[in-house]
């Protein structure tokens, strides 16, 4: 069923009794052309673009829980393309362009809101670094504006501009950045892929990868074996565990990242703001809660929950940036597990195992990449060649020295 004002009116007249489920709940078939492991944002996006752009519809998405039960529903919903390095900028800009047309493409309201992403700077050196980043973005065709103190003050008068230690000197603004409704992104991709015949198979945990002569030919699952001509992994957070089923080790550590939401408030902040003197970012959901987060906890974890020191650190950053937040009560916090790669950048590539494709290493920045990740992964799976904007995301870049290290932190995942 196509969603439109006419279907809404028609259903209204019929008492909303004719709405159908947004996707089927099929049992797995014995064999597919492509098996996608992972029914999160990236896996579902891959399925949608395989079906819609490459005409490959004999596809199964295998999800161990329910669709969107992992990181696509655990992030802070920010979308942006303000990257510095040549390997990253065109990829994230493709993602931003796909966000801009996503709702029309999917016929689904993902509540994409280009409310602007503002990165604050607090020193001359940081201003120079941000000016460089903004110039790199503009050279790559991405929008960026360097703002001074007064321009930021006009936007966000309640910040602590005259902080003794970290006064706010200005910010780098990407107006096209913003946020999207994260669950709706997963649901929209799932519904669009389902409408083209892709099977979304839930409660189906992959327990093994079937190999014959060094080639992956199928998967063992909690719902029985399934054969696949191509097997695609999109299981960020658990990539090392699934790769180990095919005998692979990855340049990845799994870390826990926490996020937070406050009680619902009246409209207070109409963009996304990041603090430049610590790791902290904040925006406001359409429901009114302030959504914010900071650093990963910093140790290997699959627990989907973190510890108190990082919570304290995030709250301290919040207070340093915006003292008025001290009056706000926290409502919830939660954790998700991140594929922290060794250079802070993702991997979209073939693997040494024939027939096995890898989409991994998204660190804590995977949500904004969801459309482009699916788009480029589908391109790789369908054509065997990397998409032109994702050629740098190779698995062998670590061994060859072609790392993409935005932070310059080196092979230390908890510093990215």
């Amino acid at each position, binding site marked *: 069923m196509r969603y439109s004002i006419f279907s809404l009116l028609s259903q209204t007249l019929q008492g909303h009794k004719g709405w159908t489920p947004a996707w089927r709940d099929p049992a797995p078939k014995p064999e597919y052309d492509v098996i996608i492991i992972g029914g999160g944002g990236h896996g579902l996006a891959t399925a949608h673009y395989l079906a819609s752009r490459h005409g490959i519809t004999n596809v199964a998405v295998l999800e161990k829980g329910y669709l969107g039960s992992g990181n696509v529903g655990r992030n802070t919903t920010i979308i942006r393309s303000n990257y510095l390095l040549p390997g990253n900028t065109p990829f994230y800009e493709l993602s931003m362009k796909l966000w801009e047309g996503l709702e029309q493409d999917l016929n689904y309201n993902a509540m994409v809101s280009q409310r602007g992403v503002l990165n604050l700077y607090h020193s001359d050196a940081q201003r120079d670094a941000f000016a460089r980043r903004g110039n790199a973005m503009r050279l790559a065709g991405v929008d960026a504006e360097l703002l001074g103190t007064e321009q930021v003050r006009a936007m966000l008068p309640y910040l602590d501009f005259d902080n003794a230690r970290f006064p706010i000197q200005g910010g780098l603004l990407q107006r096209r950045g913003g946020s999207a409704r994260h669950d709706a992104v997963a649901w929209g991709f799932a519904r669009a892929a389902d409408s083209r015949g892709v099977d979304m198979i839930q409660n189906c945990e992959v327990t093994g990868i079937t190999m014959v002569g060094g080639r992956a030919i199928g998967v063992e699952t909690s719902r029985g074996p399934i054969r696949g001509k191509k097997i695609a992994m999109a299981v960020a957070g*658990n990539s*090392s*565990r699934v790769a*180990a089923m095919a005998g692979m*080790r*990855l*340049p*990845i*550590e*799994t870390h826990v990242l926490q996020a937070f939401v406050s009680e619902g408030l009246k409209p207070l902040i109409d963009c996304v703001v990041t603090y430049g003197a610590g790791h902290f970012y904040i925006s406001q959901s359409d429901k009114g809660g302030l959504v914010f987060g900071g650093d990963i906890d*910093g*140790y*290997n*974890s*699959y*627990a989907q929950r973190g*510890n108190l*020191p990082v919570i304290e650190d995030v709250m301290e950053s919040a207070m340093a940036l915006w003292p008025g937040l001290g009056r706000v009560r926290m409502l919830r916090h939660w954790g998700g597990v991140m594929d922290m790669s*060794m250079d802070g950048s993702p991997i979209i590539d073939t693997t040494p195992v024939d027939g096995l494709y890898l989409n991994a290493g998204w660190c804590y920045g995977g949500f904004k990449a969801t459309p482009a990740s699916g788009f480029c992964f589908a391109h790789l799976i369908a054509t065997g060649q990397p998409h032109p904007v994702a050629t740098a995301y190779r698995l062998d870049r*670590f*061994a060859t020295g072609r790392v993409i290290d935005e932070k310059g932190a080196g*092979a*230390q*995942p*908890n510093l990215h």
Partner: protein
Amino acid sequence: MRITCPHCGARDAQEFSYLGAADLQRPDGMAASEAAMADYVYQRDNPAGVHRELWYHGAGCHAWLVVTRDTRNHAITAVEPAKARKAGATA
């Protein structure tokens, strides 16, 4: 999460800094192949389960510790000084 330092007793994890997997063996840089060195620098087992890892007690005794911890639930089963390991191991 609290780590029971063998020198200082049970302390909040905030006092410690994390490095990563404890049992990586650095190959001889002059003799090792590029692949072996890349493997040492970048590749990790990253288990969901028991993990031996290096922590530094920066707000305490300044000792490097090998902590055995379950990455699924953060339960710590052993904390030993890294120094106690055999000579030549990385720390």
